[in-house]
């Protein structure tokens, strides 16, 4: 089809080669074409953070990105952080701290937290709050989420020692 481009990038560590229209939103590309549904859409306009993914290590809102922007990049979604059997320490901390209620905001939250902890391995509580302030959660009041961030930071700190 005319107007299609072939994109190559890595997704959760695996190379992806896909033909798509350059104007396709990344959130649709990942959810629908590539079937990774951890990426959620909550608003479609950059307000809720549910669709966050890591692009070259930076949390980005996939509802505001176009497919063409992925060319050559490294993309990580919540699925790429960990799985049920092998969760990332952040995900394990979210589950243990009770930071997950409906769970719809969670993949985006954990992605934002992954960026934070890569940048700042031992954040203060207010830094954690700041880091997730672009991710809305309507269920938790954020308390347990911040708890989980602190726990994850500790667990990851121990791991690297």
């Amino acid at each position, binding site marked *: 089809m005319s107007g299609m481009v072939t994109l190559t990038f890595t997704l959760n560590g695996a190379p992806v080669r896909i033909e798509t229209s350059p104007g396709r939103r990344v959130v649709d590309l990942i959810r629908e074409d590539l079937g990774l549904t951890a990426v959620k859409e909550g608003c479609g306009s950059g307000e*809720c953070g549910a669709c966050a993914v890591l692009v070259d290590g930076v949390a980005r809102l996939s509802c505001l990105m176009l497919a063409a922007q992925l060319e050559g990049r490294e993309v990580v979604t919540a699925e790429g952080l*960990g799985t*049920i059997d092998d969760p990332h320490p952040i995900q394990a901390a979210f589950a243990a701290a*009770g930071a997950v209620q409906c*769970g719809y905001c969670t993949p985006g939250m954990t992605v934002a937290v992954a960026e934070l902890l890569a940048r700042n391995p031992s954040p203060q509580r207010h830094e954690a*709050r700041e880091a997730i302030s672009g991710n809305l959660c309507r*269920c938790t009041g954020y*308390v*347990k989420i911040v708890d989980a961030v602190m726990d994850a930071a500790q667990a990851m700190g121990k791991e690297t020692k």
Partner: protein
Amino acid sequence: MSKAVGAERFSTDIAPPGCLWAGARRAGVPHARVVAVHTREARALPGVVAVLTGADVPGANLQGIVHKDQPVLVTDTVRHAGDAVALVLAESREALAGALSLIRTELVPLPGVFDPEQALAPGAPLVHSGREGGNLLAHALVEKGDAPSAFAGCDVVVEGRFETPMQEHAFLEPPNGTARMTRDGGIEMTASTQAPFRDRFEIGHALGLNPMRVRVRAPYLGGGFGGKDGATVQCLLALAALHGGGRWVKMCWSRGETFLAGYKRHAARVRVRLGASRQGTLQALDCAMLFDSGPYAHLAVEIMALAMEHAGGPYLIPHTRIEGSCAYTNNPVGGAFRGFGVAQASFAVERAMDSLAQRLGMDPAELRLKNALRPGDLNCAGVPMESPAGAAECLEAVMAHPAWKERDAWKAQAPACKRRGVGIAASFNAMGYGRGLPDAAAAKLELTKGGTFRVFNSVPDMGQGNAAAFALMAAEALNQETAAIEVVQPDTRLCLPAGSSSASRTTYTFGNALLKACGAMREKLKARAALFLLADEPDRLAIRPGAVVDEATGRSVSLSQIGSMLQRDDRICIDQFVMPVVENPPDTGKEFRLGFPHRMYSHGACVCAVEADELTGQVELVRCVTAVECGRVFDSLGVERQVQGAAAQGAGFALLEDLHVEEGLIRADGLDRYLIPTALDLPPLECVSVEGDEPTGPHGLKGMGEVGVHGPAPAVAQALEDAVGLVARRLPVNPQEVLEAMGGEKP
């Protein structure tokens, strides 16, 4: 863990390959006569499968949980901007969007009515023309004693008018679902819904289908809070599926559409007169509440009933007269939202308590404590408070908390250009449906061939964690590891009927049914194991994780052995529970057929500390402490989570959330303009739980999903009065008012 890693599949994650997309064209104007809906160009667009209008709807074309007055697709009249005028089915979302924009509507604007008081004035335009009763949807009276004469004996009487706005649920997962027509002409559907069992009847009635041919599945919801109680996508989606030729059809509302067409917490106006003796003993209450239902009844009457039942707060008031009305308008549709009318009533009565405390020169906490309902007292609607009734205990708990105890010292340390204040409030919230309809649930429990258990959950989990609570309950009751319990999410074909996920009822009602089913399962396991173990007294057998053991002989049989030997019918235990109702209902509130009064209440109290900025008028919530009594605490982490989530929504209601509805149109129709609290807007929401024990509850618990939402609004208002002297009578409090209040003192 599946949610924590993003592996859980929500309704919106289901996209069968090759599915069609459905979407509604919304009216966009609040009141109009429909002359024509032109669909030809839309139909001609490549990729468009069907374009339907009101004339294509089979059946009654009316939806509504109790009162059926909301069309699936409007035929002659548009009554609010979110009304659907046409439905499109297309091969792709691009084609869908294209077709929706090509539909031309010929609408003749009608004068609208956008204020519930004006709606009731003579000569107001009618929302439902020709309706007997005009725009007055319902009117009711709840009385106890003789309030009019009791006021004469009061030493102090305060009076006020209060307003609370519409509130948006802002659940993160928008309303959505997937459906297809089955071979027999029925419908199968997966939707983000709080009431799959009721949806079948809604769809059946609206579209003239046999409800038993409608199968609805409800996976975990990405939030609901009442906003998915009642049809959102269901009827439209079923209609689309009827035209999909057996293909799957998916519908997902955008955020904008959710704002436009979704239900809101009802805006309310409340006038309160409250009288007391010089010593601060409450004597009389006179209260009039008016709710803006929007153009359809939905749950307005039931919400008004609950508001009236709570109009007196958790206080003993011997004489009450509570009047309620709800009016049709051309505003967005009002509906259920955590706290179901109580949030509105609570704000008004708590504010009246504040002015009473001030007039009496009493401490607002002491005034509340002095009048708190105790077991055996009759509440404002004449319902006896069964034990336990933890109103006083909740107040005492927050009064003992440093946030309240050390408030003077804290206020004295206010930084430059900031003023500090602290406020307190109490609340209560009925649980369950109340009289008039059975609040029932049936639970099914299966022993699998592998020796584990499957709980067939009938009430959706919208994030409150009932599914996890059920796993915990069953594990404990069957003496198994929680890993041995699988909870099947609601599916009207596999699970047994239960009411909706609402009214703080799920854990209590389904939990009770489940515990009974577990009891039956224990009996069965022992009886069947007795055959294997040649034990003629099954009672001496004990159920252990994974096995049934005969202590006397030391022999045991594994659950997988039992499971593999039994026929499926024999591996299943079923039981049900119906919530008890008030035995001698008070002789009042006769207008209510449903939902009045209730038998059980959860209690709460809340302290909020705020800091107001002298330069900007911005208010920061610095501390928020909530105490709840919801029977026995079975899962304290679960209670804390519910309290924190509720407090966050209460804080939003108090300080941020404003839809700006003007002439029926929502101006703040996205999450960029309608602000809900972010992580930077909330303090650590502290939670104190007060142990109670509800003798009829599973493990002694009551429902607690809602009670925590009520405290922050009145407590913040009182705190602001304390800080800057602002007498807040409407929500949300805006910085301008705060600034003005400070300006008055400091010219």
